[in-house]
């Protein structure tokens, strides 16, 4: 993981990622004009998740990091999802 061998992301790639992120930003805004009822949150989170994936993988270079770190980042999101889910076991059945 020493600096010299670490991956260099080209300007072009970064620019392309920005375009993708902008695209999804407009997608998430325009999707709101349809009434998807209970799916709105799901769709919004899905799109935010995709955007987050691109930021993490390319801007934050996670794609080129070692496996351990990638697993750890994944675990953080899993842990958080579990905590939310379990809290809802209380709130959905009250």
């Amino acid at each position: 993981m020493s600096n010299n061998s670490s991956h260099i992301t080209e300007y072009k790639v970064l620019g392309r990622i920005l375009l993708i992120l902008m695209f999804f930003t407009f997608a998430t805004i325009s999707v709101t004009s349809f009434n998807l009822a209970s799916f709105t949150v799901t769709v919004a989170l899905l799109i935010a998740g995709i955007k987050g994936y691109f930021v993490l993988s390319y801007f934050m270079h996670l794609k080129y990091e070692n496996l351990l770190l990638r697993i750890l980042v994944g675990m953080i999101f899993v842990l958080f999802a579990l905590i939310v889910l379990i809290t809802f076991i209380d709130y959905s059945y009250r």
Partner: protein
Amino acid sequence: MMSEKVTHIEEHRDDAASKLGMWLFIFTELLLFGGLFLVYSIYRAQYPANFHEASLELSVTIGAVNTIVLLFSSMTIAMALTAMQKNNKKLALRLILVTLLMALVFLVNKYFEWGAKFHHGLYPGSDLMALLERGHLLYFSLYFFMTGLHAFHIIVGMILLIVVYFKVKNGSIHFEKYFLLENGALYWHLVDLIWIFLFPLMYLIT
């Protein structure tokens, strides 16, 4: 039984260690906001209609502009790192400045957004807030707290990047030793990452 004689301890590897340290710190930040997202999700599930009505008070345009500003700044700081790796100090410095400028634009935007709310008497503890329905009240409480905490992180990130800027300038961050720039950039991406989730959850509720 195999065992090994160790005659020297490897020298401290600053770069790898501090990068891992930064990632761990990012984990704590994610969970800090995670607690707020948990509160948000509980209250939104309980008062979906109220949350929808209240969110109409926010301007999607300002939110979208700020989203794009942050995404753009995230790219420029990533490019600053690339420039540093390619030993292009001048470009790196410029890109950091652009990032800082974008951060400022974000804050100014936020200032006007909050200012308008305050102008309408909508702020924590105001008389108007006390009259609101429960769901509305919770929505605005969360809105002020979450965007406020996020804005605080923007400010911290800016301070970090200013420090990095001067370190690049005086040469203590250079093309072979740039982990401070890398960590500053990581922090900045985190701020962006949180906003990516805040934006749809605060501004786009149907």
